[in-house]
């Protein structure tokens, strides 16, 4: 079977593993190989000449870099969106209902760092809600933050809705007016065997692909 290499952000690991299986079932001649890593690492690998066919990023910033380096074919397409949610410790001991409660005294909160998409969006949301939160730590990725909340180290944090769905951790929704929506772009790459790569991208955007993404908590673009 011919390999088809899909470079996908680590946070897409679960849905893309499912997509891989579904796609292979309908394209028996292809072997989809998913390479999961942080988006910046994937960008670097692509820039260093990796033989990749499809790139699915967690934010537009990293996608822009791939475009800028001339490795993307055409305009990237948005295939999913994500919402923010407040992740809280088991049983929600601080009775957090919304962003406003995060500023309460004695409430231990951390966000992802401003360099990380989740951190950037969280800060935008807080700004919209005009809440000043002191982050105990600029967590470098979502799962470090989720882990700390799960283990009771923190009372709350702001992450993506999908992270809560995947890990089954209690989440408090953020009011719609404060929501920040994250877009996930996908593109085929110049090094790719164009037909198959395009077929995969199409599959992700097709109803059956969207169904898989929805099952993992993603919203349609």
């Amino acid at each position, binding site marked *: 079977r011919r390999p088809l290499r899909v470079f996908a952000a680590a946070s897409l690991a679960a849905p893309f593993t499912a997509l891989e299986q579904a796609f292979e079932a309908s394209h028996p001649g292809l072997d989809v190989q998913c390479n999961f890593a942080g988006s910046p690492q994937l960008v670097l690998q692509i820039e*260093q000449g990796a*033989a990749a066919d499809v790139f699915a990023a967690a934010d537009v910033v990293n996608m822009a870099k791939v475009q800028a380096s001339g490795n993307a074919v055409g305009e990237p397409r948005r295939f999913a969106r994500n919402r923010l949610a407040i992740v809280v410790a088991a049983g929600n001991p601080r009775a957090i209902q919304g962003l406003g409660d995060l500023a309460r005294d004695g409430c231990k909160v951390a966000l992802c760092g401003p360099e990380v998409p989740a951190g950037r969006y969280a800060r935008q949301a807080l700004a919209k809600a005009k809440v000043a939160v002191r982050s105990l730590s600029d967590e470098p990725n979502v799962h470090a933050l989720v882990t700390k909340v799960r283990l009771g180290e923190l009372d709350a944090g702001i992450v993506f809705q999908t992270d809560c769905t995947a890990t089954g951790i209690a989440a408090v929704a953020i009011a719609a007016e404060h929501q920040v929506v994250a877009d996930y772009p996908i593109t085929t790459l110049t090094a790719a065997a164009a037909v198959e790569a395009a077929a995969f991208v199409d599959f992700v955007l097709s109803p059956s692909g969207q169904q898989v993404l929805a099952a993992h908590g993603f919203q349609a673009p």
Partner: protein
Amino acid sequence: MTTLRGPVRWLIGVPAAAAVLLFALPLFGILLRMPWSRLGEQLMSPAVHDAMRLSLLSSCSALALAVALGLPLAIWLASGRSALRTVARIIVMLPIVLPPVVGGIALLLAFGRAGIVGSWLDSTFGVTLPFSTAGATLAATYIGMPFFVLAVEAGLRAFDRRYLAAAATLGAGPVRRFVTVTLPMIRPSLQAGALLCWARALGEFCATQTFAGNLQGSTRTLPLACGVAMESDPELAIVLSLILSSVSIVVLFLLRQRWLAPR
């Protein structure tokens, strides 16, 4: 003189016990939280088998490479003192200090398809290391070998070279001397170095992911599988890391029989 007696028992015993606790408690914590029911299912999963096989393959190959290249390097480093040796020692030590992601980037820059040596490898032999098991091995070697080199160099420096003189007068050439006298006499360092190198290579994560990618079946070793699971299913990550630990323990026990025999 071999067992600890008297008040020293406490002087040694208390901090030693504290040290073991420092490592045992986290392990205990993990074991308590372990979703044991999922262990069986994971042990059956082909993806886990792939990862296990790749982990063993890349870590053992890394150890073999580390021995093949690192032993001569350690010999040279231990054979004198010079500025050149100091520089070499620092170059070899840096991968320990560098964040593994940076190590991975460095490997890409050198051995990637567009890298210094990599582009030549590609154009001449059509060999590309990234996204291949060979690449995972290279990353594991890059990360593990410094431990081997530095531990063995220490052993060689403490070795009494007069035994080599004795072996020489008995007609043994340098290679034979090394194999029949030096190696057995520095065995504890050799074992420690090999153990550290192999364990580090087995647990290697970031550099492999950056340099060799994270492809099931060809570069996704157990730690990488663990990292993927971390994103979606932290419990699974813990199960996988338990499997990883068990693999290392089983290998050590198998080796112990023949290799770690009492001195």
